[in-house]
Every structure is written in structure tokens, then in C-alpha cells.
């Protein structure tokens, strides 16, 4: 017989909770750092880290499993091509929770959840798609062809007008995409080495 989960549920019920976790995970992967209550942060951590683990494994099957949770193709691409490879050398512990203290209004204890490895740069794909995605989830799932075309275009655009380092990144990422995520080990050392110089302030601006 199935045992019910122990402890309180967030929101009103199991469906609400799973939807809320999905939404939190989506925001986390998009913005890399989100502010929420401590209780939600603690529930989000294992959920989001399992998705990142799937992203590290790569392959079509894992992609579909993650897509069934995240329901946003652009975000799944970011997760598999950008976020996953960042954590190639790390076994778990992909997110960090920082406690912020009580919130004004209801004194709920607040926390920041962030990805431990910061992004090497702001990805062009997500910023482009943010403007497009006002149509809601279903629409995103129905137009995969168009979405892919757009992604490829924006990557090329980034290729044109930037310096050597970033070009290297993009080219290695492209090979990773061709081999369906298996050859994605190259960008990882770069991503680990890069963040300290100049990239951290950029990440702060995003919030």
C-alpha cells in the first residue's frame, strides 16, 4: 500500500505542490538565483538537483523526462547544453540555499536558492525566448520546429560579434549538441575556471 508523504504540503494539496515545485524549478533554471521561503527552498533543492542530474546524463530519453517536468523546450535546451555541463565535475550539491531572515509582512523566513556554478555568460537563447513566451506552456510544446530554428539563429548571432573565448565556448557547445550531449565535457572546465573574472557582476544584474 502506498505510504503518504510525511510532513506538511506546500500550498493546498499534492497537485498544487507539484505544480509549485515545477514553477520554482523553472524560475531557478531561468534566472539561476531565486528568492523564496525557506520551506519551499528546502523542497525545491532535491527536485531541482535531480533534474540537473538528468541533464548531466544527457540523451534523448533524459531530455524527454525533464521536458515532462519543465514543459519549456528552450529551458530544457539551456539545462542540457549550459547548466548540465557546468556541473560535470561535481557530484551532487548543485544548488545553494542562503537564509535571509524573516520577510516583512508575515515574517516568513526567506531564502535564496542559487546554482553553485555561475553561468559563464548570459545565454542569448533564453533572453530571446523570454519575449516570445507570453503565449503559455501549451503553445511552446506545439511549435518545436520554429523554436529550434530560432535557437540556432541566436547562437550564430552570438558567434559573430564576440571575442575568441566565447567563440570557443559556442563551438564546443555545438559539437555537444550534435552528439546529443555526450561530447559535452569540453565546456565544463572553462565554465569552472571562468566565473571569478568579470562574470559574477553580470550574474548579479540578471536578478
Amino acid at each position, binding site marked *: 500500500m502506498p505510504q503518504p508523504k510525511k510532513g506538511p504540503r506546500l500550498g493546498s494539496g499534492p497537485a498544487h505542490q507539484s505544480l509549485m515545485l515545477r514553477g520554482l524549478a523553472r524560475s531557478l533554471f531561468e534566472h539561476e538565483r531565486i528568492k523564496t521561503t525557506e520551506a519551499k527552498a528546502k523542497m525545491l533543492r532535491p527536485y531541482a538537483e535531480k533534474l540537473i542530474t538528468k541533464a548531466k546524463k544527457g540523451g534523448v530519453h533524459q531530455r524527454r523526462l525533464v521536458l515532462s517536468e519543465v514543459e519549456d523546450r528552450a529551458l530544457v535546451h539551456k539545462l542540457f547544453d549550459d547548466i548540465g555541463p557546468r556541473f560535470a565535475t561535481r557530484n551532487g550539491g548543485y544548488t545553494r540555499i*542562503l*537564509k535571509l531572515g524573516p520577510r516583512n509582512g508575515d515574517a516568513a523566513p526567506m531564502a535564496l536558492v542559487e546554482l553553485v556554478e555561475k553561468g559563464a555568460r548570459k545565454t542569448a537563447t533564453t533572453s530571446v525566448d523570454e519575449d516570445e513566451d507570453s503565449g503559455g506552456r501549451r503553445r511552446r510544446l506545439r511549435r518545436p520546429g520554429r523554436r529550434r530554428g530560432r535557437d540556432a539563429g541566436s547562437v550564430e548571432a552570438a558567434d559573430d560579434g564576440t571575442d575568441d573565448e566565447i567563440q570557443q565556448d559556442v563551438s564546443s557547445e555545438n559539437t555537444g549538441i550534435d552528439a546529443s550531449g555526450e561530447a559535452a565535457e569540453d565546456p565544463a572546465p572553462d565554465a569552472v575556471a571562468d566565473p571569478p573574472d568579470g562574470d559574477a557582476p553580470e550574474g*548579479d544584474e540578471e536578478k
Partner: protein
Amino acid sequence: MAVPKRRKTRSKARMRRAHWRVEAPTYAACPQCRQAKMPHRVCSNCGYYSGRQVVETE
């Protein structure tokens, strides 16, 4: 169901409640700016936690 037979006197009730009190929150000095902050929390004054700036502050 078992039910009390007699009302407790005002004195007995107050004696019982004499130990109800609010505990003062624990504070620790922020290692960065010396401001009092709650332990294991980001300092709201300087935005530092574990030796690095994690939150922007003015």
C-alpha cells in the same frame, strides 16, 4: 470522556502560566561589519555570508 470536576483557581492558573515567556532571539556579530545579525543568515546590513558578498546592499 474525562472532564475536570472543578475550575482551577485564578491563583493556580496564574502559577501555571508564570513560565510562559517569549525567548529573546539569538544574535551574533557579523564578522564583516560587526552589526548584530541572526546566526546562519545573510547579514542584512552588508549582504555578506561566509566571507563573500552574496546580496547587493546600498
